[in-house]
């Protein structure tokens, strides 16, 4: 019998400048296949991973930002973004992609995946996890 654990992936780096963001997304998608209780947190420069309008044509790198919108299909619908990190960067929820998931218990109603949380709330969420993976 397998035990379901609570996994939190903590993303703290901007995309493209380093490989962390891309590697995290790869691991999240692989992990999704193991049917664990997965949540993602975006803090510090990690909030830029979810920025709308990323256009990487000029830098010759793959734009992996559209992949975040597929997370809902993998039952990953707890995406926490730290309010303080957004504010320090002059960003709001409006600057991020609109990520949604479909709730099968409510006739596949479309719901928001992103929750903006305070530092204190995120600290509590981290305490509740079984496993925290940092990128």
């Amino acid at each position, binding site marked *: 019998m397998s035990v379901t654990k609570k996994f939190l992936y903590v993303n703290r780096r901007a*995309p493209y*400048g380093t490989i962390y963001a891309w590697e995290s997304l790869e691991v999240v998608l692989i992990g999704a296949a193991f049917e664990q209780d997965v949540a993602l947190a975006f803090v510090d420069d990690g909030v830029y991973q979810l920025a709308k309008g990323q*256009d990487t044509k*000029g830098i010759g790198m793959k734009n992996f930002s559209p992949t975040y919108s597929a997370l809902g299909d993998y039952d990953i619908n707890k995406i926490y973004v730290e309010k303080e990190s957004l504010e320090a*960067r*002059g960003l709001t929820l409006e600057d991020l992609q609109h990520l949604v998931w479909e709730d099968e218990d409510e006739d596949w109603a479309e719901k928001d995946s992103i929750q903006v949380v305070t530092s204190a709330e995120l600290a509590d969420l981290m305490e509740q996890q079984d496993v925290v993976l940092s990128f």
Partner: protein
Amino acid sequence: MSMLHTVNKSPFEKDSMNSCLRLSADGSSILLIEDGVFAAQEGTVVSDSVKEAMKSKKVYALQEDINARGVQGKVMDGIELVDYAGFVKLVTEHDKVQSWV
């Protein structure tokens, strides 16, 4: 001829931008590239220090890196955007380049 400084680290994660601002002479140029382009954004915790520096130094940012990170339209007034050809031109126009890696 003056110096060209390049900054490729996020101002929110590393101290490179601050060191560059502190140690670059008046009249020099600063080019923001890669994650350094976040320093070109309006309304951040570092915007004021960049604006202050712009009184005595010219600040540029690489358009391609801005676009990749989705911060087009958030670049503060007074920062000149350049493409890769513009990057090369800046290098040729200055007698030295210091990279704040």
